[in-house]
C-alpha cells in the first residue's frame, strides 16, 4: 500500500499536474484559525506543510518569520501543534501533513517522543531545515521505522556526489530548494535553470517525488507545470498578514489564493 504522501503525488500525476503543497505556520494567527485555514485549503492543496514556529530561524525570510513570531507570541506550544494536526486529521477531506521546522524543537521534545506523537497525531512527513545529511542519518532511519517520511533537502550548492548520497538515503519525497535564498525571496534564477537542476535530480533519482520550493508564487508557479510538486509558503503567510492588517478574514483570503494556485497548474 502506498503511503499517503506518495498516494497524493500519484493522484496528481493521474490528473497530469504537479502536486500542490502549501506551507502555513501552526498557530498563525491563532490555534483555531490555523486549523480553519488547513481545513479550507485542504480542498485545493494535495499535501499540507505545517510549520513549527521557532524564534531563531536561520533559513526563513521576513514573511514566514512574521507568521512564526505571531504564533509564538500567541503562546503556541509543541503540544498545541500536535493537537492542531490531530484535529485536522479528523476532518473530512484531510490531506497528508508534513511538519517543517528546526531541529531544536525536536531535540527538546526527545526524538523518540516526538516521532511517537507525530504518528499518533497523523503527521506523515518531516522536513528539518537545519539537520542536513549526513547529520540526519540516524534520525531519518528512526522516521522510516515509524513510517514517517523524512524529506531530504537539496539545493543549488549540492554537488552531484552529495546529491547521489542524499537521494540514496532519502524516502519517497525530496525537496529541491530552487535558489540561494531564504524562504520568500524573489525568484532570482530563471525557471529554465531551475528546471535543468530539477531534471538533473530526476535523472539520478527518477523514482522519488521531487518538489520545488522557494520563490514559488502565483506569478511564477505556471512555469513549473512539468514537475512532481510545488511548494508555496511565504506568499500564503504574507496573505495572512495582509488580511489581518486589513481586518479581513485570512481563512477566506488564503483559501481563495490556494484555489487560484491550483487552477494555474491544472
Amino acid at each position, binding site marked *: 500500500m502506498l503511503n499517503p504522501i506518495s498516494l497524493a503525488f500519484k493522484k496528481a500525476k493521474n490528473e497530469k499536474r504537479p502536486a500542490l503543497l502549501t506551507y502555513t505556520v501552526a498557530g498563525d494567527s491563532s490555534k483555531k484559525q490555523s486549523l480553519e485555514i488547513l481545513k479550507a485549503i485542504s480542498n485545493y492543496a494535495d499535501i499540507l506543510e505545517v510549520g513549527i514556529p521557532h524564534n531563531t530561524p*536561520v*533559513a526563513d525570510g521576513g514573511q514566514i518569520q512574521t507568521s512564526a513570531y505571531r504564533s509564538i507570541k500567541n503562546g503556541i506550544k509543541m503540544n498545541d501543534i500536535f493537537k492542531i494536526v490531530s484535529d485536522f486529521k479528523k476532518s473530512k477531506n484531510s490531506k497528508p501533513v508534513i511538519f517543517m521546522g528546526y531541529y531544536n524543537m525536536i531535540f527538546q521534545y526527545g526524538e523518540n517522543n516526538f516521532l511517537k506523537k507525530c504518528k499518533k497525531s497523523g503527521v506523515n512527513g518531516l522536513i528539518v531545515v537545519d539537520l542536513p545529511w549526513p547529520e540526519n542519518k540516524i534520525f531519518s532511519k528512526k522516521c522510516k521505522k515509524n513510517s514517517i517520511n523524512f524529506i531530504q533537502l537539496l539545493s543549488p*550548492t549540492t554537488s552531484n556526489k552529495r546529491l547521489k548520497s542524499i537521494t540514496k538515503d532519502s524516502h519517497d519525497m525530496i525537496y529541491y530548494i530552487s535558489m*540561494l*535564498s*531564504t524562504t520568500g525571496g524573489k525568484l532570482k534564477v530563471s525557471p529554465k535553470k531551475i528546471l535543468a537542476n530539477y531534471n538533473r535530480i530526476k535523472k539520478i533519482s527518477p523514482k522519488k517525488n521531487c518538489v520545488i520550493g522557494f520563490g514559488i508564487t502565483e506569478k511564477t508557479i505556471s512555469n513549473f507545470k512539468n514537475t512532481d510538486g510545488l511548494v508555496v509558503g511565504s506568499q500564503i503567510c504574507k496573505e495572512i498578514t495582509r488580511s489581518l492588517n486589513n481586518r479581513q478574514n485570512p481563512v477566506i483570503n488564503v483559501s481563495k489564493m490556494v484555489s487560484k494556485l491550483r487552477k494555474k497548474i491544472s
Partner: protein
Amino acid sequence: MKLKKGIPVIDQGDRLGFWGGKFGGNFVPETLKKPIEDLEIQFNKLKNDRNFIKERDEYFKNWIGTPTRFIKLNNLTKHVGGAQIWSKVVSDANGGAHKIYNATVHCLLAKRSGKKVIIGDTGAGYAGKMLSMAAKKFGLKCKIFMGAKDIKRQQPNVKAMKKNGADVIPVYSGSQTLVDAVSECMRFWVANCDTTAMCVGSTVGPAIFVRICGWSTSQISRELKVQLINEFGEVPKKLKLYNCVGGGSSSFGFWNEFMDYDKKQVEFIGVEAGGPSKSKRHAAPLTYGSKIGILHGAAQYVNQNSDGQIEETESISAGLDYPGISPLHCFLKDTKRARYTAASDEEALKAYQIVTKYENLRPSLEPSHAFSVAIKEAKKLSKNTIVVINSCGDAYKDRGILEKKLGKKYVKSN
C-alpha cells in the same frame, strides 16, 4: 568526556564537528553545507601553511599592534590586599578589543578565496567595528548585522563602522540584540553564499567558525605566556586567568596556550553576565545550568524554554548579551578544565568604578564582569598567586550607559 593533551582544543572535535561527542556540529541548511565545507578545506590547509602564518603574524604585528601590554595593577593589588593583580590589556589592540584577530583572519581567508564581500554580526559593536576595519584594510565590501536595541546602546561603535564604509543593517526581529543579529547574518549568507564570505563574531556558529575564531584569538595567550616567562622566569606556580564569557572568543583565546597545564597551576575562571540582580533574565547559561540545545548551527548550553524556543537575555553589556555559549566552553566546563560563574550588572558597574578609581585602565562593561569576580576572589588568595584579568575591551563604547548609570564624572573626555 576528556580533554586531550598535545592537540589544540579547536582540533579535538570529531568528524562531524562535535566536541566531547555532543557540543558543536553543523546544524545548518543544506545550502550552507558547500560553503562551509569549502571554508573547512581552506582553513585546514592554511592553518599549517608557513606563508599564511607569516602573513597573519605580519598583520598582527604591524597592523593590530601585538603584543598588547601585560601590566601589574599595583594600586588595585594594594587596595584589594591578597593576590597580585595583573591585567593583559588586550584593548590596546588596534580598534580597542580582541575582535580584531578573528576579523583579520576572516578577511585574509576571504581575500584568498576571491570573495568580494564580507558580512558579520555584532553585539557590542566591536566585532562589527573590527570587521569593518579589516574589510577596509583588505579592500572588501562589508555588511554588519546588528540588533536595533544594540545600535541604540552602542553608538560609538556604530559610528566607527559607518566611517569605515560598512553598511550597518539594523535587525528588528525578536529581542533586537546579538542573537537576532547572528540569525539575520546567517540568513543573508544562505541567500548570498556564492559571492559573500561570512565572519561569525565569536567562537559560536557552525564548527568551522568556532575553530577559526579560537585559532585567531589564541594570539592573546601566546603573547601572555611569553610575557609571564619574561616577568617571572616561568609560568607562575599559582596562576588564575579571569575572563568574561559571552560567546567566549576572548576567554578561549586568553586560555588556549595554557590548556595542558594542570588546573591547580593555571586555573581558568570564566565570568558570565548575570544580568540585573533583580531580574530573572541573564546571559549565563553555564552558571545557571541551562540545557543543551541548538542555536546558530551548534549544540551548546543555551537559555531556552521547555519547547526549545530560545529565551531572551538581559545584560548591561551588549557583548555578553547572548543566550548561548561557545561549544568550546561547554566542553571545558564538562571536562572541568575551566570554572564558570556570573557577575550581575551592578557588580560589573561597581568593579568598573573600583578599577578606574585605582588604575589608569578603563575596562569596558564586558571585562568589568571579570574584574568583579577577580577582585572578590583575589582578597582571599595568597600574595604569590598571580591573578590576571583580560581587559579585552575599552569603555569608550559604553560611555552612554556609564554616564546614565554612574554620572558624568566616570566618563572621560576622549
